[in-house]
């Protein structure tokens, strides 16, 4: 069942000076925009906790017509600088939607492609990639993520750009026994790997450099498979 989006109100025509006009219009608009953003927040938030919880996010995804495992939701979280996986606070929501200039569901939906482009810019993607890892750390002092979650995360974050590397790495992680978790250093190492090493030739790869050991073993495993 679709929730109704807030209806737009047309601003009245104004007769005072242009800057004043602009300023008062824009500040009115801003407050109105923020109201609408808040209103939208309330439609998905849990009343008692005043947070959008996993159920609310599920609803949001449905309305945006994206799967909740779609990378764009993760990108949205990044834009909001959301801290806890599965939850959006009001502040985070405001931050994200304001930055995207979206105060209705439709506008938010339309903003997603633009957001994706922004995230995929070389200058941003590394940051987003690191963010994705941190986002999955649920416990207080947690520093690593279990293999299964990593595999899912890799698929979401890198699946569309580095399909082959992800598929092979995921297969390797599932087969091997040395590692039960992956830490941030290894996570970032994989990103560097995808960007710097040609696949599947991997001629540039040198295990005597400071690549994380898990990648050394991964490369070795592939060479043994292909041999």
């Amino acid at each position, binding site marked *: 069942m679709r929730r109704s989006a807030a209806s737009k109100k047309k601003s009245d025509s104004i007769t005072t000076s242009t800057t004043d006009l602009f300023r008062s219009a824009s500040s009115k608009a801003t407050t109105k925009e923020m109201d609408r953003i808040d209103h939208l927040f309330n439609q998905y938030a849990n009343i008692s906790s005043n947070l959008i919880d996993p159920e609310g996010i599920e609803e949001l995804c449905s309305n945006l017509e994206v799967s909740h495992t779609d990378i764009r939701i993760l990108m949205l979280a990044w834009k909001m600088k959301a801290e806890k996986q599965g939850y959006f606070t009001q502040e985070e929501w405001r931050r994200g939607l304001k930055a995207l200039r979206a105060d209705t569901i439709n506008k938010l939906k339309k903003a997603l492609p633009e957001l994706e482009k922004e995230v995929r810019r070389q200058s941003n993607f590394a940051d987003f990639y690191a963010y994705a890892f941190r986002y999955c750390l649920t416990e207080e002092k947690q520093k690593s993520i279990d293999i299964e979650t990593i595999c899912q995360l890799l698929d979401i974050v890198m699946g569309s750009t580095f399909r082959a590397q992800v*598929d092979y790495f995921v297969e390797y992680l599932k087969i091997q026994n040395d590692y039960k978790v992956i830490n941030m*250093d290894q996570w970032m*190492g994989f990103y560097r790997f995808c960007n710097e090493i040609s696949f599947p030739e991997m001629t540039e790869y040198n295990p005597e450099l*400071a690549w994380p*050991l898990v990648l*050394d073993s991964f490369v070795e495993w592939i060479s043994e498979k292909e041999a």
Partner: protein
Amino acid sequence: MEPKIIDFEQGWDYIETGITALKRHSESLPVPKFTLEQYCDLYTAVYKMCVQKSPYDFSSQLYQKCCETMEEYMNSTVLPALNEKLGDEYMLLRELVERWSNYKVLVRALSHIFFYLQRFFIVRESLPSIETVGMGYFRDLVYNKLQSKVREAVLALVDKEREGEDIDRKVTKRVLEFYIEIGMERYEQDFESFMLKDTASYYSRKASSWIQEDDSINDYIFKSEQCLQKEKERVSHYLHFSSEPKLVKVVEHELFVVHENQILEKTHAEKQIGLGPLAKIFKQHVEDTTINAKEQVLIRKVIELHEVYMVTECFQSHTLFHKDLKRAVAGSDALLATFCDRIILKKWGSEELSEEDIEKVVMFLAYISDEKDIFAEFYRKKLALRLLLNRGVSDDHERSILTKLKQQNRGQFTFKMERMINDLTLSRENQNSFKEYVAKPGIGLTVTVLTSGIWPSYKTFGINLPNEMVKCVEVFKEFYETKTKGRKLTWIHSLGTCHVNGKFDQKSIELIVSTHQAVVLLLFNTKDKLSYNDIQTQLNVGHEDLVWLLYSLSCGKYKILIKEPATETVSRTDVFEFNSKFTARMCRVKIPLPHVNDKKKVIEDVDKDRRYAIDATIVRIMKGKKALGLQQLVSECVQQLNQMFKPDIKTIKMRIEDLITRDYLERDRENPNMFRYLA
């Protein structure tokens, strides 16, 4: 709009056409090149047919068909081609190698095309992967049938090469790679074991004739060394590297050990110090655990060599000898230390060695050991047992050996061991004071106090002591507290010895048992018969440990307790009875506890110590340098630890990553090859 449903027949037809093209491509037949686009099309077709909603989800049928395709290919193409060549050995090998290679290409291509099945259907249904199934067909239909013929062909080639003929090494190598790909055990059982037997008989014949012919020992040694060299080259040309040590052992055995008496005599007669052969003979004996007369001859020789090469300044031969011998005993550090133990305990045949001789041998063995920290660790463990079980070696002698070892090896080699001996001296002094303290005799109690951390760690388990023993423990504790403050005593009953008087029908016999065993026996003072459960409840000992104890008293050579039923193992329903009919020839009998093999544990302990050592070294280096590239860090690390062992780059990398997780280090933001120290 819903995508169009692909029905199975249609879909499979399309895929099959692609596969046919693939088959021809894999055989390098003239076909247009199989393009990436074609691959993608086939992949997509498979994908589509798998994601269609039920009942159009054809994952299972596709898997089935793929397997059938491979099997059919085997039967229609591969097998006939091989059967054709059965008459000619060499052609058979060539055909095998080519067919195998083509088949692998096909299977790999199929597994790429059907990769979508691999990711979901195959995993979900826990089925074997397409590659596994494919390889299985080759193994069952080709390998099992032909492998003995193939092996004969290869061994014939090897013998030809030994006689000086040129053979096709490339094909031989590929054939053996094929064995290895089928599985290492297949390589080992179906090829290697036969190859080793073949080699042994070949060299046995050669050795016998050369020993008769050759006048000078040098000629014999020269020829033998050449053969060894050629065999090693053979490994690098086409055998698997793991065959090398086994092959070398067989050849050395036939060439050196079988005729060692003659070799040693000739060496002595010609006044040659035959380094190589002696090292090899020595090594083979070290690996053999029985003591025999030949060993004594060897020890004599070793002592002579020691005099010549370690005492005199003979540089050139020194390094040659050193290298030769080290190579010969690589990996035998545990054995060397065990050998030392035997020598020190003087468990010989008739000839006794002087203490000086013993020292020379021990130093020599320590000198040639490769990984000194492993040698030291085993030596320490053996020393501990000698000291604790009081096996009749004088402290002074042990000290003297340690002093010599200390001079020879810098660093921490003997630190702990010296302190162990000190502990014992201290304990003996303490014991005298204790006797005075106790005044009236109860059970005669002798206590040895070991400083923890200095001695090897010993496992023990708790047990409910009988009152008499509890009192003893308490009295000693009181006494000890008068001598020292703030120390905690943990009793290692597993190392304790008790002398228990057994009043049997025929005669009283003194039983020498461990403390744990004694506690069990004392239970039978109040009752003749006790069930397993009774014993366990009274003693509060874990099942595994209790089984071990009861086994030693009821199922071993000396049955102090009768077990009902009289089976080979102890179970929870057994009942034990005091065996009043027990008797023995002697009036004192030792009841041993079955030994646990602790070699694995020692290696584990050394590995742990090494990890700590590497961590400490890395932190020390990084603290000083603040930032360092990986290569430099590794080389500094290796340099600092080189005395005791050689860490490899993989282990160092692992430790660095661990230190990063523990926030000692971080990777530099700009340069991923560099690490920074985190204060």
